[in-house]
């Protein structure tokens, strides 16, 4: 019952519905306010002068009829019915001076809401009835179109040019790379040295004992690394055994 389909057959904006159809037709209402507005229009007086009480009666009767016919009634219609029943009782019962807002105030609010909705509905109809572009009035069918042509004004300075050439030439100058010789012990040297020194030593010996005697820290590092790899290689071949209690603990080696 949301009635909110975008393109239905309705194009006038001004609802004209027959009173005798109301009791049978609960579809097609755009909410309780829409129903109320249509009922109000049936009073055939200015919305500002309608009888709210009569309108409430009509709405409640309509809902009652719908219930009798076991029509499905959306919740918001029932909420409105409850509120209208409350408003009716307030309007009929002896006046409670404390009531704020007063029943008259509530009735006026309802009236204003109906007027607003009605005004917007009429405004919509009047908009649709105007001379509309593409329906009643037309733009030029085949405009040539306007074009903006961008022209780039390229900018560069003489210095940029010269500096660029300088850097190109500098790039293409043959470059000389001098690699400084560093003291290293190759893996082959370490393998030969460890294999020779281990002989048939059966006692556990720390790997450091296999390093050459040197003051050169870099060379010592290189020798240690190569000797370690050499020890691993010899262990793989089953020539030596390795033992270490834990990570970073001294590494011991002996002949297998």
């Amino acid at each position, binding site marked *: 019952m*949301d009635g909110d389909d975008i393109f239905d057959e309705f194009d006038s904006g001004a609802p004209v519905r027959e009173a005798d159809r109301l009791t049978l037709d609960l579809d097609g209402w755009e909410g309780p306010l829409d129903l109320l507005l249509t009922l109000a229009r049936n009073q055939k007086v200015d919305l500002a002068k309608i009888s709210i009480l009569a309108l409430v009666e009509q709405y409640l009767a309509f809902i009652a009829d719908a219930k009798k016919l076991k029509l499905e009634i959306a919740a918001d219609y029932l909420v409105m019915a*409850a509120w209208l029943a409350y408003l009716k009782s307030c309007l009929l019962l002896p006046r409670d001076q404390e009531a704020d807002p007063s029943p008259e105030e509530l009735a006026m*609010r309802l009236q204003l809401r109906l007027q607003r*909705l009605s005004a*917007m509905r009429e405004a919509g109809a009047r908009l649709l009835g105007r001379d509309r572009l593409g329906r009643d009035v037309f733009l030029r069918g085949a405009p*040539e179109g*306007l074009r903006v042509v961008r022209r780039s004004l390229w900018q560069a300075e003489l210095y940029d040019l010269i500096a660029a050439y300088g850097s190109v030439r500098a790039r293409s100058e043959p470059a000389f790379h001098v690699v400084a010789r560093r003291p290293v012990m190759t893996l082959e040297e370490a393998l030969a040295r460890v294999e020779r020194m281990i002989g048939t030593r059966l006692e556990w010996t720390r790997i450091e004992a296999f390093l050459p005697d040197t003051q050169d820290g870099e060379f010592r590092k290189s020798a240690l690394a190569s000797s370690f790899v050499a020890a691993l290689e010899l262990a793989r071949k089953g020539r030596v055994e390795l033992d270490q209690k834990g990570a970073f603990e001294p590494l011991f080696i002996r002949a297998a």
Partner: protein
Amino acid sequence: MIGMDDSLRAVEAVLFAAEEPMSADDIAAHVGPEVDVAAALAELASHYDGRGIELVERGRRWHFQTAPDLAFILRRQRDETRKLSRAAVETLAIIAYHEPVSRAEIEAIRGVQISKGTLDVLMEAGWVRPAGRREAPGRPLIYATTPAFLAHFGLESRRDLPGLDDLKAAGLLDPIDAAMEQLGLAELEEAEEE
């Protein structure tokens, strides 16, 4: 210096060639700064007055269009424009007369929720655009109409909306007080407890 006749001709040509309505600034960008665009527009509008084509201003943009009374001749060569749903028409009217409005305010006036599709259709038509957010709790998105809306419905500006002054005078366009539109839910809850 371009003479008046050449100015007129230039503005006329630009507006004829344009694919969209053009502001005076848009026109000036094409015809050059030496042309008095406003004067040319005024003279062109009066020249075309009463002809089969007329020059109109819509939301500070100008375009040529066929005269409305000739619609009967031209209509047959066009597809009927798609019909708008009642929900879409009402929503459009509410936005146009109240802008900028939030969705909740539109719903308060119509008394029903609007489906997402309704606003989408109006935006797709190019008549409605999001116009920022209301500085209020929840910072709701607010909607307003576009120059294309004015162009489509033949309005020079929003002041030309039919019946605008009367509606204003009757207080029917006052800011929507959501609390008031609720009809007082507190009372309703009381009523339901009976």
